[in-house]
């Protein structure tokens, strides 16, 4: 199991109801079903992945994240996961607002654009950075936004979103092991994982 998914799993309580947005063929959902006995659901846009996921016995809806989250009741899920998808979401504020509405807690993870290797590429090569976490050329990348840990923290502050936990991870893409970054995480983290309090867990509400 990918290390970042293991980290996400460590944040999830047993037997909870989980929605994974952009779930792919359901690796995380299957892992969570086996290790945490969750009631899992997924949303995925890619037909081939949807079929693989349903065929392995998962509940997956074929559709886009923007549209498919709207049908669920407030606080319906114990956790909503947005793993490695944030950088590709078009209507970001709307999606964050929706997941905080339908999830009692939300887990958001994304590749950091502030890693030191990226800084060096920009600084010395004067080229758009290419790393294992961000492997695309500037002209074919699906990543429409660049995010750093600090950016996301500020976004949460601005919208009064309560961060329950923040983890900075230094690991290679698709690696099965890795470590948390304690030293200067804003520079050395390749991934950030945030556990956020959903609207129903935030009595005063938030500003989105």
């Amino acid at each position, binding site marked *: 199991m990918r290390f970042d998914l293991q980290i996400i799993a460590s944040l999830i309580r047993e037997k909870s109801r989980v929605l994974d947005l952009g779930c792919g063929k359901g690796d995380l959902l299957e892992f969570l079903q086996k290790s945490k006995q969750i009631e899992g*659901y997924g949303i995925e846009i890619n*037909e081939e992945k*949807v*079929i*693989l996921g*349903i*065929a*392995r*016995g*998962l*509940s*997956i*809806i*074929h*559709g886009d994240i923007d549209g498919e989250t709207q*049908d*669920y*009741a407030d606080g*319906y899920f114990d956790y909503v996961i947005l793993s490695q998808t944030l950088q590709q979401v078009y209507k970001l504020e709307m999606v964050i607002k929706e997941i905080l509405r339908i999830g009692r807690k939300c887990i958001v993870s994304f590749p950091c654009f502030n890693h030191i290797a990226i800084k060096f590429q920009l600084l010395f090569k004067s080229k758009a950075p290419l790393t294992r976490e961000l492997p695309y050329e500037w002209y074919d990348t699906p990543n429409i936004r660049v995010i750093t840990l600090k950016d996301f923290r500020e976004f949460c502050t601005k919208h009064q979103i309560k961060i329950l936990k923040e983890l900075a991870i230094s690991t290679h893409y698709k690696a099965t092991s890795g470590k948390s970054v304690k030293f200067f995480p804003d520079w050395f983290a390749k991934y950030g994982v945030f556990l956020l309090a959903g609207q129903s867990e935030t009595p005063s509400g938030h500003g989105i």
Partner: protein
Amino acid sequence: MSEYGEHDKNGLSVGIVEKKFFTFAEPPNKMIMESGARLGPITLAYETYGSLNEDKSNVVMVLHALSGNSHVAGYYSEDDEKPGWWDNTVGPGKGIDTNRYFVICSNIIGSCYGSTGPSSKNPQTGKPYALDFPLFTISDIVRAQKKVLDHLGITKLLCLIGGSIGGMQALEWAVSYPHMVQSVIPIASTCKRSALSIGLSEAQRQAIMADPNWNSGNYYDQDYPKKGLALARMIGHITYLSETSMHNKFGRRLKENTAFSYDLSIDFEVENYLHYQGNKFVERFDANSYLYITKASDYFDLGEQKGGGSLVKAFSGIPAKFLVISFSSDWLYPTAQSREMVKAMKKSGLDVSFCEIETDFGHDSFLLAHEQLTKLISGFLNRIYS
């Protein structure tokens, strides 16, 4: 639908099967139809494949569409030219694996493949019912099917699966008998037919009724309304295809000549094909059954009939798990209608999966051998069964 029946490439088949019959609603205990009319006795033809396990927990019920029948898979005899209409999906090692599951399909009430319908003899007159046969609904079809299951001692359905009007029955089942149904797979179906779809349905009925041989439904001892029924089938057949599939199959190819005939005979290959389909259909289907079954599907509106106008309410509290499947090129029951169904199921808190399969083959895609469809069905069934 049997247009697609082909022998299995790997020779996998349920083998020789037998059509069985069950009769109920003997007078005076006639069945009260949704319209208030009474009908009885009623016979339904049905077939089963595979073996029922000890605790009767492996039952998969297949629901057929407009022109289908109980003959889902296998052959009636050694020299049968074609297998059942869904032989590519039902059989040993197939999407619905008859080595694991006990599969049932009954010919719907009002059809003409062994079940009581307008062409059946009315015991009161000794003549075919014709238009004395009461109009029926999807709910009536399902209530009659339930009698067959009662007769077989089956109280639990592992899965209900059907395409098109078969999907409507599957949905109706889940809502009407929620305690019996573990899972449902509606394919290329809808919770209510659109105005476009009802309009096309009525055009097909009018084609039949405009044929003088239809004779207000009384044609059983005289000339059959062949032209009308063939025309209805031609219209219907177009609605089951897509622009792309028709373009790929026929384009503007001419039938045999290299030039136009400059008369009103058949010039294009597509015309020729539709005439062929229409004429072939006339040999196997009853014109009045066509009128009645299309009408039943037009009446179907699950939200209105079972949820007082709310589909969410109709679905609420149903324990069954759903797998909804649509096809990108289906314009008769388009993906948007499946999405509407899924939306209501989500709002009702149901466990629902959904997949739109990208294909050019239109509404009829559900009848074709399709690797993706098979993967979805077998994986989903496996999850429910284990």
